[in-house]
């Protein structure tokens, strides 16, 4: 009798295959991506508080050239140049935080670093912020727009306050810095006033830089259908060891075509010197007019966030595009 009960139990177990389920097909979660692109802007969603694709804006001025890092516990931290309305030769660096790209800032734009050194000539802009140990390091552009230099500052309170380097400026005749610190070496990628291309500078201590005289990324005039036959600018570099142990470099930048239209492209490299464009002649974000500038990216193993500045409602605002 006891065995009959066991047999009945086994039969019930065997028959449980008749239970029908209707879950969606799996196997495509968290797929890896290099984050190169392509990127697309999120559509305006009336069910979210954000004004997609814009994530940060300021009612009193233009926000531009953002630097973005993840925030502990979720969300993003921004540092960006901020110009008051109708003022073109002055700029401050402000900060903001958002809990998600579909949410309004929970730390609204507020000043983080002001131009208070003589070489800055009332203008600090284009911050590049990296996490380095327990501190944040910022390289930024200062000085008159036609004679910019690069300065450095550090923050030990998560980017709320910044202490500028006494030896500033570190690099003259350079603008739009982007930085990485890897394998004990510091790398800056900059543009230079009056010169075409993106240049690389290296340093062992992050303070004293040697600038390569030739650009590592140049326009492609021989490829007229390319997005960047005339000029390249606004670099944002990212580098790291892959799962395979390879040192991999990626750079987002603006390309300008013969019509003066700008688009954001991407190039990759294994040494930071020889770069290959992603997508051939095409940019990774092309949304038309008005153009997007000042790209910066936050990459995760299976997705990427590309932040940029774009004019909207008469002001430069910070927007986002997503991949995949």
């Amino acid at each position, binding site marked *: 009798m006891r*065995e*009959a009960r*066991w*047999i009945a139990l*086994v*039969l019930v*177990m*065997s*028959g*449980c*295959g*008749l*239970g*029908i*389920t*209707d*879950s969606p*097909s*799996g*196997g*495509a*979660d*968290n*797929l*890896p*991506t*290099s*984050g*190169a*692109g392509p990127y697309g802007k999120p559509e305006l969603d009336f069910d979210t508080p954000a004004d997609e694709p814009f994530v940060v804006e300021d009612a009193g001025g233009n926000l531009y050239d953002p630097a973005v890092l993840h925030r502990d516990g979720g969300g993003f931290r921004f540092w960006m140049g901020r110009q008051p309305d109708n003022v073109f030769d002055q700029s401050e660096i402000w900060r903001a935080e958002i809990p998600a790209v579909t949410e309004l800032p929970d730390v609204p734009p507020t000043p983080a670093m002001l131009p208070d050194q003589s070489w800055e000539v009332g203008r600090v802009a284009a911050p590049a912020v990296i996490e380095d140990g327990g501190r944040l390091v910022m390289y930024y552009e200062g000085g008159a727009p036609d004679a910019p230099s690069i300065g450095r500052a550090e923050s030990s309170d998560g980017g709320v306050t910044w202490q500028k380097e006494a030896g500033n400026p570190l690099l003259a005749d350079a603008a739009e810095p982007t930085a990485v610190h890897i394998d004990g070496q510091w790398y800056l990628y900059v543009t230079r006033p009056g010169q075409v291309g993106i240049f690389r500078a290296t340093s062992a201590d992050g303070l004293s830089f040697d600038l390569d005289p030739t650009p590592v990324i140049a326009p492609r005039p021989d490829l007229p259908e390319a997005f960047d036959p005339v000029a390249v600018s606004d670099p944002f570099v990212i580098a790291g060891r*892959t*799962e*395979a142990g*390879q040192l*991999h*470099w*990626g750079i987002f930048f603006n390309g300008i075509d013969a019509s003066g239209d700008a688009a954001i492209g*991407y*190039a*990759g*490299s*294994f040494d930071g010197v020889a*770069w*290959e*464009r*992603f*997508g051939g002649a095409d940019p990774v974000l092309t949304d038309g007019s008005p153009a997007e500038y000042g790209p910066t990216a936050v990459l995760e*193993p*299976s997705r990427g966030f590309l932040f940029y500045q774009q004019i909207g409602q008469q002001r430069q605002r910070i927007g986002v595009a997503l991949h995949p």
Partner: protein
Amino acid sequence: MRAATLATALLLALSAPAAANPVDLFGFGARGPAMGTAQTAAAQDGGANYYNPAILATFPDIRIDVGYQYAQPTMQIDGQSVGDDASRGMAVSLNVPGRLGSVRVAFGGALLIPDEHISRVRTLNSQQPRFQMYDNRPQRLFLAANLAAEITDRLFVGGGIAYMSSTNGGVYLVGRIGFPDAEDSNLDVAMDVDLKTVRYGQAGLLFRLNDWIDLGLSYRSQFKVTLSQDFIVNGNVGPANGMPVVENGYLGLSSKAEDLFQPMQVTFGADAQLTPRLSMAFDATFLRWSKFTNPAAHINLDLDIGDFNALVDIPPAPPLPDPHFSDTLSPRIGFEYLAYTSKKRDVTARAGYIYEPTPVPEQFGETNFIDSDKHTLSLGGGVTLRGFSAVFRKPLDIDAYVAYTMLEARTTEKLSPVDPVGDYRATGHVLAAGVQTRWRF
């Protein structure tokens, strides 16, 4: 002579062409998977319909197996799960012995009915990373019918066919396409979908070398499912009342994909009764993975808009990259130990091991077929009950197993610095279990 004629006829009937299936991955029933699926010479249950149909001719009685199988792959890339679906379903098999003249024969059939997908075919582009062996492969029906015969008292042959379906379909729109207002279109829609039966063959031999060693040989033919889909629009382009801008315009989009590939397989197996209580089974399977074709869809676009053709340049579809899989040889070993026996019941313990080398080469280019060498350890047991019921006078078997497959970690290093996927590290494991009852009549 009659036996030889019958055997020849039976083998000739198997020349049909051949999908990887959940049975290929996880085995059939509960006894076989418990023994590392080394069953080509050792099957004693309805699993013979898959492992070696010749063994069906050795069964003296009608047997019905009813069971349930479950396998959950957990595959990870860079430490994150890709969320593979479980493969689970009811496994049923039937074996009916009989005689054709003086020849002892048996008819058998096996069916694995998945809970969720009778068949899942999804064509992904070659660049999209996927665990090739655990994406579509475990998600399909297995249905096989077999015939076996005893040639001599030492030699048995068997074979049969397994079934699947391929899909041909299309959507056809005929009429007028509104221009400049597309919403003004007037189109008749016709749809045509064919699910065509695809058969693939399997065959086997069993040779009783002596009282304690059986040798087996099995063959399963190659198989893949073809999916053809067409989308055709035919008609004038223009306003409802007026001259058409394009007369007899044509847009044809055809997609063709091949999926659910099953390699041709030849397995040699041996089963040795080492002691009255202990038996050992061994299989070595050759799998012809080198014939694997890229499962991505090949899409062709054809457009005829008359005088405007010169304005449109549709480049030909690029060829799909060759996956360059390699043939593999997979050894399997299993043990069965009669732990307890009495007048009323036997208790048996089983264990097994499988090594499956990966056929997938390094993915340094644009494709991302992910796989690595696999090791499977299995454990199981069975109870045979005798005289447990006045209705069922013959013994009843209840088997169960659990198996763990570990995929070796494999790192992919890309040659291009602008590879859209980049480098990654893949690993994974599979937990499988099943239970089966075998009824004799």
